[in-house]
């Protein structure tokens, strides 16, 4: 249940570590796995003080940037059609651009299987595991 002011972990390598949700897109209800949200980057992933030019270039977003994101894990349990419920230990998202492509190139951590149903196959293919 991600809504305004919800903090999420950003699990890709786009440069963001912690983001805050400011808007849920497409529905008038809190967001769950597979929903698109608008986020503000609150914390940047610190890669070290002396960064090479290539590493600096790889960081796509900075603190204070506004970006779109897709929720991939929620701490609130959500149900599936077979009667099972699933719950993760944190809220997490993956930053995307306006056309729906992920900004990062790698993901860390498991994601929810609902991404397939909601047509986020690119994100699902990057994920190391899905539940």
């Amino acid at each position: 249940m991600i809504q305004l002011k919800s903090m999420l972990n950003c699990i890709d390598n786009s440069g963001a570590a912690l983001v805050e949700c400011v808007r849920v897109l497409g529905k008038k209800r809190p967001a769950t796995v597979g929903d698109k949200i608008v986020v503000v980057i609150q914390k940047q992933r610190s890669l070290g003080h002396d960064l090479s030019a290539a590493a600096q270039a790889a960081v796509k977003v900075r603190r204070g940037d506004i970006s779109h994101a897709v929720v991939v894990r929620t701490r609130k349990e959500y149900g599936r059609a077979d009667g099972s419920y699933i719950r993760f230990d944190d809220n997490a998202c993956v930053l995307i651009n306006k056309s729906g492509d992920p900004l990062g190139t790698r993901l860390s951590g498991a994601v929810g299987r609902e991404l397939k149903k909601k047509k986020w196959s690119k994100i699902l293919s990057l994920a190391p595991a899905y539940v």
Partner: protein
Amino acid sequence: MTSESFRPLTTLLHRRAASTLSTTTTNTLRSRIHFATRPNPTLPRRRIKVHPPPPGPPTKDPISVLTAAQIKALDPSGSRAELFSRNNPQAIRPGDIVYVRRKNGEPFSGVLLNIRRRGIDTSILLRDQLTKLGVEMWLKVYSPIIDSINLVQSKEKMARRAKLYYMRKLKHDFGPVRGIVSDWVRKSYAAKKGVDKAGQSAGQKGQKEQKAKKAKK
């Protein structure tokens, strides 16, 4: 006659009794008492459907009867119910590691935190750690999607609680269950293979003996 037919039966009887003088009419009246007059004879007769009574004797607790019927349909052998029965000493208890195989989809395993007993909706909460991230799943015990529920490792000492939500805290978190489960899966397959092999070899031995006997005869 139409104006008369709209009046209640009793007044009709009284009027007929008053108007008649012979005794024969009383007999016909008596026989007539049993028939109700139709408000409008020109309209077709109404066929009022009388439904048969519901089958079976009336029960004080239809929900438990329904639950028993549903469980019987989904778990005819009773093995699933026995796995989580309170009376069974070999039952799965909170704190045990459980491996659930599903018909479609990947199997899920984890530490059992909670058994929610609600008749047909009885469900279990399994907690696992995938890629250093805790994942919990509620699974319906009687669901036809679930192929099998297996006890991988039971807790050494009985958990002193029925709901083990304290295991969400870092101090008590069991951690990933993958290693224990993969060992168990490997062992169970090996055991199954061993049994099959033993069965085969025993069968072959038996056939050889029979052949030898026949040859002797």
